[in-house]
């Protein structure tokens, strides 16, 4: 079953561009969402989180003073974070592989490439509903399990163990990826 009623979910939309916020909000309302709160940057969003119980955060990358990546880290690992487990969808035009990896390593659940559509946004929300992931604390990393599929025959790199030592994000090429390529990359 992939048809979900979203009306009881609380969304927090974080984007410094008012037109993007309006677009995302309009799509969510058309999908039946009743509660959307907007924030203009990461600091504003963190303030909102203190009194607004967001179930899903949709967050832009490039914002100031606190950008999307710093906001994700603050939510995940900040000592005063109201909800370190809240699902976060990173919404951005930065779709180079190293950017996707950086977002994943900061602890985002899903990556949504701009320009967006109703279908692409709903697909990311659906993914969060259908595939709840355990959280991993390993070295510098705290966030949703980056291994989305169990593979008993896995013989590749042991990233969690490497993370304990380095804590750094993996590198990658600078080429732009399509939403399908991003999804394939994140889904292993």
């Amino acid at each position: 079953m992939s048809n979900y009623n979203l009306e009881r979910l609380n969304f927090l939309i974080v984007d410094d561009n008012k037109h993007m916020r309006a677009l995302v909000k309009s799509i969510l309302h058309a999908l039946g969402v009743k509660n959307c709160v907007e924030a203009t940057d990461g600091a504003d969003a963190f303030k909102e989180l203190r009194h607004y119980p967001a179930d899903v955060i949709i967050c832009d990358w490039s914002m100031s003073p606190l950008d999307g990546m710093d906001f994700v880290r603050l939510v995940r690992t900040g000592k005063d974070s109201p909800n370190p487990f809240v699902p976060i969808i990173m919404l951005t035009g930065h779709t180079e592989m190293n950017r996707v990896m950086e977002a994943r390593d900061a602890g985002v659940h899903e990556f949504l490439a701009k320009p967006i559509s109703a279908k692409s946004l709903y697909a990311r929300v659906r993914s969060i509903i259908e595939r709840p992931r355990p959280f991993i604390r390993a070295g510098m990393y705290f966030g949703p399990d980056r291994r989305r599929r169990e593979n008993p025959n896995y013989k590749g790199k042991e990233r969690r163990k490497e993370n304990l030592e380095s804590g750094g994000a993996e590198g990658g090429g600078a080429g732009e990826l399509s939403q399908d390529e991003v999804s394939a990359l994140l889904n292993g």
Partner: protein
Amino acid sequence: MSEENGQEDAQVRVITPPHALASKVRAGGPGAVDPAALERAEQVITNMADDYLNWVQEDLRLIQEAMDELKSSGGDNQVAISRIFAVSHDIKGQGGSFGYDLMTIVGNDLCRLIEYSDNPDASMLDVIQVHIDTMKLIIKNEMKGDGGPEGTRLLKGLEMVASKVKPS
């Protein structure tokens, strides 16, 4: 409450957070997002295309303003370059949602062109201006989708112009 247990080794913790969404989301029934609801949501975006044509004018004004400053400084103005990149990035991220795929393509091309360009020379400034002029033309003529033969001609022209200034 979440459940924390060491499932791998002492330093890697696997934590099962409460799945708050499961208790708030109902599958199926009235109000569920079915294909018809998705189509309606797409239609809402389509209906915003007129609004987009208004607000993109402001983006085009801002990018030209930054471009004028960059030109007047002979290309040596990092703040202006950053502003051009930021506006172009917004244009790239929005155009396609409203059917203006060419704005997304040209916006992306301009971002790629200037992201490593710290101090553009006169030729590079010309090429940046051509990209901005192309975006203005796309909006003026309301060229949606791929823009047909005219769109193809525009993109080919831009590619040719950009190839003259891109480092080999």
